[in-house]
């Protein structure tokens, strides 16, 4: 996979796909999309980049190793799930900020739950794939 066109293309594709994945994530509550799909799209972006630049350079792009994203996502989701307990409501009760915010819409605990899923999916997929890539090399 040494094609120069692909290599150049992925340089630009990576940020675009990442942006797109965040867009999909945030609009998930209103239109098709959500944390799972968003996370998968983001993973594809990184996988594509690793095809042309090698796993190690992709890993350098990431601030943390993907396996670190797994606990981060889990904790974020769990926190947003348990947050209502502190407000004296049963777990998983939706907490919402009253005023809608442009583009994103309403912000609530469900959104953070979805963001947690997003990071977890990226972490899981990249951990699996990059481990295998490195093993195969």
């Amino acid at each position: 996979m040494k094609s120069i066109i692909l290599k150049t293309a992925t340089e630009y594709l990576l940020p675009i796909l990442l942006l797109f994945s965040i867009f999909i994530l945030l609009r998930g509550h209103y239109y098709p999309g959500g944390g799972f799909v968003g996370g998968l799209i983001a993973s594809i972006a990184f996988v594509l980049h690793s095809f042309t630049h090698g796993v190690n350079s992709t890993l350098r792009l990431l601030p943390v190793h993907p396996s670190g994203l797994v606990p981060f996502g889990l904790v974020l989701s769990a926190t947003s799930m348990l947050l209502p307990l502190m407000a004296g409501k049963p777990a998983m009760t939706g907490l919402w900020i009253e005023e809608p915010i442009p583009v994103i819409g309403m912000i609530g605990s469900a959104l953070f739950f979805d963001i947690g899923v997003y990071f977890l999916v990226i972490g899981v997929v990249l951990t699996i794939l990059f481990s295998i890539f490195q093993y195969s090399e």
Partner: protein
Amino acid sequence: MEILLLILIALLYSTGIYMLLRRSMVKLLIGLGLLGNGVNILIFLLGSITKGKPPVIDDKASLFRDIYADPIPQALILTAIVISFGLQAFAIVLLKRVYVLVNSDDLDDLNTPEEEDI
């Protein structure tokens, strides 16, 4: 259309099981995938399929006004798809490790030490 989906379900189930019964580990994995797809379509079909009406509420309304696709099977299948990815990834890595260990794709090779015990 339901009939067509039924045929596809039967096909995916049969081929999935057939592949599971092979001796090759890779075929076993492929069989798992086929079977999973068959199950997904089955769940999808049983939730009554609807054309062109995604379970998304209109911008202005707070409720559905007319019929819409059943969201529950969709949520179930979405979960199933993601989980099956995890399953396949794990299985495939397991297979790879086993392959390196016994240097064979043949499931029966895994049995040899056990048989000597008997």
